[in-house]
């Protein structure tokens, strides 16, 4: 089984999808000839031709609006927004159009499209190349929202997203494109080639949307995570010696509630981590879900460690980023150890 980076796995998923289904077309800024600024579509135009993979004007509203029209026609567009931070001009087309077309037309028209976006921080990208806007999508009825954390999942989930009959937001944390970032920015990145999740099968396979993955089984506490923070949580658990049951949610909507509840019932503790700002973040939804369904099993308050409620900083990136120190301290605190308060809300 070949070892791939997440970039290579995403590229491979595109190629497999385009090979299997001629309705699949791929476009976005710089995705054609050049193959994307992160190279996720490299080689597709050469292999499939410029009618299957092409560049677009710098117009997110245009990219998504055109994709909605193509999907309504019967194609399967898979488009790239160069950075999730740039998607706001397309938000009306995503929220008012793609998400609601099936419902408002009672199934007469549908919008089976995939919108890929590099997301998250950790790359010194400042406020316009680091945001994690997943909650802006999970709040919208009619969208499915995926956040990937590794090459194996990225390929299987992207193939599932492209095949899905409904619009899928596909978020790719760019900090883990080349390796499972452990949260320590001052240490060398471990490449995917040395990680089991960097093993990516050839050819077609898909991972059902709405299924979480137990990233690391444990018994002390549950960590609900997705994207980069799956790996950060594992680092934190290892460093503070907590036997964490780390759940990689993979799909936020639809959410794999059973896997979450099963874990919390087992451990009695639930830590929620995400890079996105705390207030009204997806962690709030997870927290509500856990207390609604596992309240009597909880032995400690549900705790969130998230990005601060500030714009994403440049120079102070590593003070903002919920790294292993903050996550590990929260774990210790939840286990009853004597640790300073480090969670999002002061106590």
């Amino acid at each position, binding site marked *: 089984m070949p070892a791939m980076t997440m970039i290579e796995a995403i590229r491979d998923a595109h190629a497999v999808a385009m090979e299997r289904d001629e309705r699949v077309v791929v476009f976005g800024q710089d995705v054609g000839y050049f193959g994307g600024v992160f190279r996720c579509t490299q080689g597709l135009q050469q292999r499939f031709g410029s009618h299957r993979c092409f560049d677009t004007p710098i117009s997110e509203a245009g990219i998504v609006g*055109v994709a*909605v*029209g*193509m999907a309504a*026609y019967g194609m399967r567009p898979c488009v790239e927004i160069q950075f999730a931070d740039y998607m706001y001009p397309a938000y009306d087309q995503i929220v*008012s159009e793609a998400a609601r077309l099936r419902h*408002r*037309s009672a199934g007469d028209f549908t919008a089976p499209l995939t919108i890929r976006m590099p997301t998250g921080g950790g790359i010194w990208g400042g406020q316009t190349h680091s945001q994690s806007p997943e909650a802006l999508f999970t709040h919208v009825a009619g969208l499915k929202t995926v956040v990937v954390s590794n090459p194996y999942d990225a390929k299987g989930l992207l193939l599932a997203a492209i095949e899905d009959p409904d619009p899928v937001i596909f978020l790719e944390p760019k900090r883990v494109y080349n390796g499972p970032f452990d949260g320590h920015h001052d240490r060398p990145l471990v490449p995917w080639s040395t990680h089991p999740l960097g093993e990516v099968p050839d050819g077609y396979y898909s991972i059902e949307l709405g299924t979480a993955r137990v990233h690391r089984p444990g018994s002390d506490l549950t960590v609900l995570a997705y994207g980069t923070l799956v790996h950060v949580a594992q680092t934190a658990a290892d460093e503070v010696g907590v036997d964490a049951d780390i759940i990689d949610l993979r799909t936020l909507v639809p959410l794999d509630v059973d896997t979450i509840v099963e874990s919390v019932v087992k451990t009695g503790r639930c830590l929620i981590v995400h890079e996105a700002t705390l207030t009204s973040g997806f962690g709030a939804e997870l927290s509500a879900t856990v207390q609604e369904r596992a309240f009597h099993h909880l032995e400690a308050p549900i705790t969130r460690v998230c990005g601060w409620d500030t714009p994403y900083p440049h120079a102070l990136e590593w003070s903002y980023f919920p790294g292993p120190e903050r996550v590990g301290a929260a774990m210790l605190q939840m286990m009853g150890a004597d640790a300073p308060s480090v969670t999002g809300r002061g106590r």
Partner: protein
Amino acid sequence: METDSADAPPGLRLRIPEPICRPGSSEPAGRYLSPAGEARRPALDEKVERIALMRKQLVRVLDDDGNAVGPWAGTATNDQLRAGLRDMLVVRALDARMLRAHRQGKISFYMQCLGEEAIACAQQRALRPGDMHFPTYRQQGLLVASGYPLVTMMNQLLSNDHDPLRGRQLPVMYSSRAHRFFSISGNLGTQYVQAVGWAMASALSGATDIASAWIGEGASAESDFHAALVFASTYQAPVILNVVNNQWAISTPEDFARGAAATFADRGFGFGIPALRVDGNDYLAVHAVSTWAAERARSNLGPTMIEWITLRVGAHSTSDDPSGYRPDDAGARFPLGDPIERLRQHLVLIGEWDDDRHRVLIEQIAGEIEHAFTEADSYGEAKAGATSDPRTMFDDVYEMMPRHLLEQRRQVGG
């Protein structure tokens, strides 16, 4: 330092546009009037630079006496023109009856297209059955001219149990893939760029169907309009880009979207898209220019922008009262007249129509409308509680209902 006021530069000022008339004043005579038959009919592949002036002129076929003149005349047969007259009369009668239904409290909302009937009706007849329209809420003429059942339109308006959209949309936000009428959003302008995408998909698929995008002059200020133009221009998509300039965006005059440009068709020219300005109250001109634009698109010659000059004679919607912002005689004084009357005059002039036939047709249509409404009304109305099962609101959010919606539906009952 003290500055002598005589030497001080004047302070900066903005221009806040004022409409051509407001309550208490009147439309000045002669606006838009140019001789019928004057505009030339370019070859389909004429370079955009060579027809640049057509974005400033006005293509007109019918003259003041009802003669069809000039190079754009003759694209429709007399049978087609009679069908067009009927389409427009049906739309007008439907609008009138539905406004009455609104006053009767039967429907919650309505939008008429009084005075603009020719544009949608004629373009529908100029296109082919496989072509797809991406309309606004004032193109009911597309549905009528495509033979969409009146009773189905009324079911949608009543949001009753026979509404194909299951009561999910405001009245007039129709959708019919079978009749090539894209689901109306209600958010303005979004459909314009989607039409370009649909046209691109048709071309990528090697099909021969084209798309027709519709927008009002006011909504052309939205960014989706500009995104549509740049994509249509870049990929030379097979799409007709219609801008219906009916002068008013609720109370806001067209000047606010047009800015300092002379015409809306100027927008197309800036993108290298052939752009024409057409008398939208002239059924023959609408049919001719739509046919030309469709042929261009189908011949891989790319998009065409058409600014249709017309007037929204009625209120914006049943929630609007235009007497507060424009003169009551705006319709009567509009220089391009009434599209139905102008086509009727033409058909009579050439001996293809007469007053008796006109009167009989109007009576016949009134009967059809009444018959359809009696049937639709018998299915009930949402306002009187005749709605679908509440559980149906969870249908079609996704193709397969995910767990959280199944759970919520259970809370609604069932």
